[in-house]
């Protein structure tokens, strides 16, 4: 089964990337953009989707500083 993991900086944790993009945008001619956050996207095919959570905890995400969200092929968030 195809799965998609969205990994983003935990709320309240500094997101230097998002901040840098947000600060740069107006100067580049893109106005009206706010709350930019940059995270990671991991896409994979997995035989047993029930273990995805564990996989995120242990490898894909860094639970100390990142939140993650798993989406299975059907688009349903888990």
């Amino acid at each position, binding site marked *: 089964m195809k799965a998609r993991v969205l990994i983003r900086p935990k709320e*309240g*944790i*500094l997101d*230097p990337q998002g*901040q840098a993009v947000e600060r740069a945008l107006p100067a580049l001619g893109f106005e009206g953009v706010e709350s930019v956050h940059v995270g990671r996207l991991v896409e994979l095919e997995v035989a047993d989707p029930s273990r995805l959570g564990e996989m995120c905890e242990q490898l894909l995400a860094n639970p*100390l500083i990142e939140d993650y969200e798993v989406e299975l092929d059907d688009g349903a968030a888990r």
Partner: protein
Amino acid sequence: MSGASTVEHSTLRHRELGLTDPEYERIVDRLGREPNDVELAVFSLMWSEHCGYKHSRRLLGRLPTEGEHVVMGPGENAGAVDVGDGLAVAFKVESHNHPSAVEPFQGAATGVGGILRDVFAIGARPIAVLDSLRFGELDSARSRYLMNGAVAGIGHYGNSIGVATVGGEILFGEPYESNCLVNAMCVGIAPSERLVRSAAAGVGNLVVLLGALTGRDGIGGASVLASAELGEESASKRPSVQIGDPFEEKKLLECCLELLDRGLLASLQDLGAAGLSSSASEMASKGGVGIDLDVACVPRREPGMEAFEVMVSESQERMLCVVEPARLDAVRAVCDEWDVGATAIGAVTDTRRLRVLEEGEPVGDMPVEALIDDCPLYDLAPQRPVSPVYAAPRARLEAGTALGETLLALLRSENIASKRWAYEQYDGLVGSRTVRRSGSADAAVLHLTHDGTSGAIAVSIDGNGRRVACDPYVGAAEAVLECARNLACVGAEPLGLTNCLNFGNPEKDHIAWQLERAVAGLADACRALGVPVVGGNVSLYNEGGGGPIYPTPIVGMVGRVPDPTSVPESAFVEEGHAVALIGPFRPALAGSELDALRGRLVNGLPEVELKAQARALDAARAAVRSGQLATAHDVSDGGLACALGECCVAGGIGARVDLAGLVRRLAEGGAPRTAETALFGEGPGGVVIAGPGEAIARLAADDDGSDRRVILGETGGDTLVIETGSTARLDIEVAAAREAFERGVADHFS
């Protein structure tokens, strides 16, 4: 809420914040009332071990701090020494152990960010970073994870901000398994008259916060993360992880240096542990003034922060400065150009109080003196341990292994093997000052000025906790000697020293004993060498689940290299060079790497004769400065055989040497297992040199008859052959040595 329950409530709070009952009473006494939440938060951090040095300040007083070259000593953000030509070099080492044990990448990265700020806070431009790391043994997945993250984090910050990481050391040992050490040292340069102090001055001047927005980073960090033992519950303390933003700091660094260049600041101070609380109170204390801060003015990253959170936030990449009101616009203009935030958040007063306001309403009011000077200081209760504190390391090498195999095993062992895997992740070149860096000499060498007319400096960082565990006094003294010897190998004379004392819980009497003996060793060695301590840092409570770390004083030094064009390498560079050993080297197996590989940890190391060591350093330095040497490499971990092996590997050239003389002397002294001891024994004082035969012969002829200068043999061929007299000889291929040395660490990460 009734009055009685308020007392109870705050009583609980102070304990949660790490204050003892008597400490709390002392606060009540100094304030003349119960502290409110803001005040309690500020006091708990200012009186934490991390900020207040409760258990170490009295000991630190024993370190010598005076010297003719000292421009700034302990007490400022970084120490500084005069290097001639109107230039000063600022430097300091600092630990970021606990944050790194929780999140190695960010912990190490913010450790580098923090020490950089200490250096540019005094107006010096950072030109180099060095790192000193300790982890558990590499066959542990956790140790590899920590090392991988810490090395990447150091590289990330240093590389991105454009400061060369030029040197460092990494050692491994089981006691660091759950409590790794990440110490970072920064070296900066400035015209002497441009150095600034952090004392706030000028009643009515504005207090301006520069740099990043303030979030809830590290709330509770200083008291909880840095001053309590890391236990099982450390997982729950994780949300306060600080994230480093080297880009923000790069702008901040350039901006601050430009502000200072233009003379726009009255004083400058970095925000480190305890954030605004400590920087504001330290600036006020040093200036003998008061400071009013309005937390409502502090630009925030997160909504809903409380006053106390703003006061103790450890958000990175911020600085606090004092500005005359008339110059505020000029300050803002420079900050705008660099896209650096600048907000007036308070003013200097004559009250000698730190007053915290929120939209003009007082929410905290504390005498600066109470925060800084009234922090309780504790005497240690040192007690020599009666039983061993540390288990012997796991044996990995059988006794009776052939000499050649033993040397290969040592070269492959993680403590000795090349750390190339790590230092190749560091930009060691940026700044165009790097004459020698990791892997090419015993100390890094950096140009002072780009036209080369002001000579160079050498920097090194050293420590060996396992030897300090064997003997805290001797081990700590040896760290000073080793650092100075590394400097001598590039011809540098030490001008000043910085140190970081990484120890376990000082409230335990055997840890207190380690600490006291180690400081005594440091102090005596510094006095013997005439090197003043200009700064440092203390990291206590380094105890994970498995007990205390090895006592690990880390020593960093800066020295002057008058002529960087003749600096030898730590490699054999030509065939047919004569190889010699200089210095009063008396090897012993006790406490050596070989001992450790065989699973032994002794109690007590051979005494060190500091005067003779100081003379030997002078002699080594003079030999190097003669400009005749191609090679100079100090004998340290793994003994003489390893030193020779490393020179062969680095240069890709073999050597044939004879240690029969040394073996004979050892036998006369009654040492057992003399061949092994000569080859692999350790101890201070030895330097391997090589160069053209005539030059080495001349140097050797200068010998005053003691065992200070011995010609050992000659470079050449593709094997390293070491004769030890009648009994046995060591004979290995340089290619095999290289393979062992290069792969020992790297293979763990492939």
